[in-house]
């Protein structure tokens, strides 16, 4: 039976009815149309569904929608402002850190979350923080360069 939940996504309040077994990623993508959050494995292995939940980067395929009741979520759609792309997004574009782009939403959110908490991370801290986000195209080199350049902005 569906349950009504209240949550805040990208500073906007939502009231939605969800199935008890529905995942947060499915709620975001198929019910709310926030398709920037990607689904690559549905098992928490690839990180492409990463969102920021109450200040923590999580795999939204491993979070049930009802667990998000009353909580605050930021998705990739919430980063851009009237001034344009977020500096981390800008850095990914400028440094060539995006190829197919399927991992980019999750990768950018993990990077943004790292920089929110650790404004000046070391190379090792960047690699640790983003190690749960798989990318098969880039070999990660330009992603690391992008995060390094974003931290100086």
């Amino acid at each position, binding site marked *: 039976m569906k349950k009504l939940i209240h949550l805040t996504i990208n500073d906007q309040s939502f009231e939605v009815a969800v199935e008890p077994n529905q995942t947060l990623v499915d709620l975001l993508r198929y019910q709310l149309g926030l398709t920037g959050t990607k689904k690559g494995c549905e098992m928490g292995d690839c990180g492409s569904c990463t969102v920021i939940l109450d200040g923590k980067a999580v795999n939204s395929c491993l979070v049930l929608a009802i667990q998000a009741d009353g909580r605050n979520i930021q998705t990739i*759609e919430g*980063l851009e402002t009237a001034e344009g792309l977020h500096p981390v997004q800008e850095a990914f574009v400028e440094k*060539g850190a995006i190829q197919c782009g399927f991992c980019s939403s999750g990768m950018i959110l993990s990077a943004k979350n790292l920089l929110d908490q650790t404004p000046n991370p070391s190379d090792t801290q960047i690699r640790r923080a983003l190690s749960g986000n*798989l990318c098969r195209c880039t070999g*990660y080199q330009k992603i690391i360069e992008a995060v390094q350049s974003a931290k100086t902005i």
Partner: protein
Amino acid sequence: MSEYTVINSRAVRRDTPDKASGKAVFIDDMSLPGMLYGALLQSPLAHARIVRIDTSKARNLPGVKSVVTAAEAGLIKYGVSPARYDETLFCHEKVRYVGDDIAAVAAVDLETAIEAVSLIEVEYEELPVVLTIEDAMAEGAPVLHNEYPGNICAEVHSEFGNVEAAFANCDLIKTTTFKNKRQDAAFIEPQGCIASYDHFGNLTLYSSTQVPHYVQRTVAMVLKLPIGKVRVVKPYVGAGFGIKASANPLELSACLLSMKTGKPVKMNYNREQVFQYGRARHQFTHTMTTGVKKDGALLALKHVCYLDGGAYSSFGIATVYYAGSLLGGPYKLPNMKYDGYRIYNNKPACGAMRGHGGVAARACWEQQLDMIAEELKISPIELRLKNMMVAGDVTCNDLNMSSLGMKECIEAVQNGSEWSAKKGKLPKGKGIGMACGFFVSGAGYPIYRSDTYHGTVVIKLTEDGGTALVYTASAEIGQGSDTTFAMIAAEALGIRLEDVRLESGDTDFGVDLGAYSSRQTLMTGHAVKEAAEDVRQKVLEVLSKELNVPVGEMDIRNSLIGFKQANVDFSGLRTRYVKEHRGWTDNPTDGPLTFKEAARMAYLAIGSIVGTGKYKPHELGGKYKGAAVGTSPAYGCSAQIAEVTVDEETGQITVDKITDAHDCGRAINITSVEGQMEGSVSMGLGEALFEEVKFDNKGRVINADLAEYKIPTMLDMPEVKTIIVESNEPNGPFGAKEVGEGAIMPTIPAILNAVYDAIGVRIHELPLTPERVYMAIQEAKKGKKT
């Protein structure tokens, strides 16, 4: 300074702002009104006869709109190469691997479709399962396909020169056997599609594919539709690496279900199904015997290879040829004999994956060359340079190295890694190794025998002037081809990159064979360039008449018209243009004549300005059987140096650094070239160190997920130093050639050679897991004691 205004730069990719902000649309982000959801029934058994299929319960489940099996789909055989069409959409007599498709369901939602699949009753009669090459080739082994006795899917026998005669003149002959493991491409976006059949009998298929053209043909052939009614459109694709380079059962099922229901039907693989479908890198077992003179001159290579093919051919015929032909270069090798066999068994089919057919062969041979160098007391670099081809050389199997910056690549990595300061001087446990490789810049022939153009392009100027619309059916799958072609169009036409808009990946735009065999930059690039030049000529011809200036005395650059003569009076044209645009704030006032004005005048004079371009390779070398696999208009090449640390107590290998130089001809987009090099290295590193698709004794994949099938994470990747070596490829647009696959060739052997340098032990089997390395170290120690 570059002589170019657009290409040969680090232009920002045009798709990446949308990809960074979540706006870029991939297949599963799409939905259509009234869309149904499809699911597949796939075989739980690796080899069985189908006795009975009963779909009645599934059909009666509320919400189910269609259930299809071989009875509805028909039995038209398809595959990749017409010479080996060995698949039907659904199995009818028997299943040949775990995951083989039996039926498909369309329902109002995915949950209902999955439930319906579980209600389909199939009675099987189990057959003996063969999972290895040895079992499949054994006397009396069960046969997968009656047409192919002995389970031999394909065999190749070729000899160039006379290997045995050459061996008689050799001072050293070396034999090694090498084995890689089945690799998965592990792209992050699983395959998916939406098919939509309309009332007029038109079928539109949106699919995560690398090859809209081949998918269009396969859909039309298998479902018996007029090809003019089939349109394939590719949204953004979350990479493919070869596995999405042919029509798959999802696409065909979704099309059939949409035809049956009259509704759009969406289907996706989940991650487990991605592994079960397979079609990625084969497991190869190579045995190579190389003969050299004392001074290191290569004289002959005798090569036998067995490919673990799985249940169907897929790309396998090309693979078994590539595994032999790609050793013809980049060294001067006068004699080469090859015997290759691709063997069927009850595992998912293998197919084409980055570096198609050549990666394991290259790893085997480049390690063997190092062994030969050591025995001859020649440095590995010296041995390679001594035998290296130069531009214009032709291999014994007729591959023409029309450009080849191989020597420059070697020198670049030698300097870039400080090789001379390190080789032979590192402490035990640390090692450095190098290797070379090359790859085709586009298959010389289409997959089906045809005189078709490999790419056609249309460029249309917007009627109000100024913007060039490029239409190409080529496939942007993440590599950056859209930006590359926009850059080529802008350069050839003489306009700014921001004045180009490009649409791609739609079969309605023309013919393009798609993203495989590293073909697009050279082949589609040629067609784009030709179309842009056509448009340029049309605009200049109108201007010539209007201004009475010969075409040859005008130029377009940076979206401005330049004249050789001083004081060409174009004020009449400008006045006409301005009059048409009263109230507009961006009208040209003074300064040079703009392309916008010129394009508008051209339209007013002769109507819409449309330029067309096309490309197919010139006649390529090789008249022998199989020459179609390996011949290409150009070849890219690479040298790499790997530096590793090996923990001798645990067998754990850490790759500390890779220095990679690649000759891509002229780099169109420098950042994208580096991106291909860095991505290739990470894929090679994964295959070298930990990737292996594993099966249980019933033919089930036991690591069909991205936790147990390990691809490199950010923590696994070392610093990769990329060095672009530019040559000027005579057969490439602006001198450009491939980078997407050649760059993976040296990675594995460079790591193998570095590991040997670190611990003094040769390992001839991948992946280099701690267990395998540790055991190899122990074996070597035992060998020394006895």
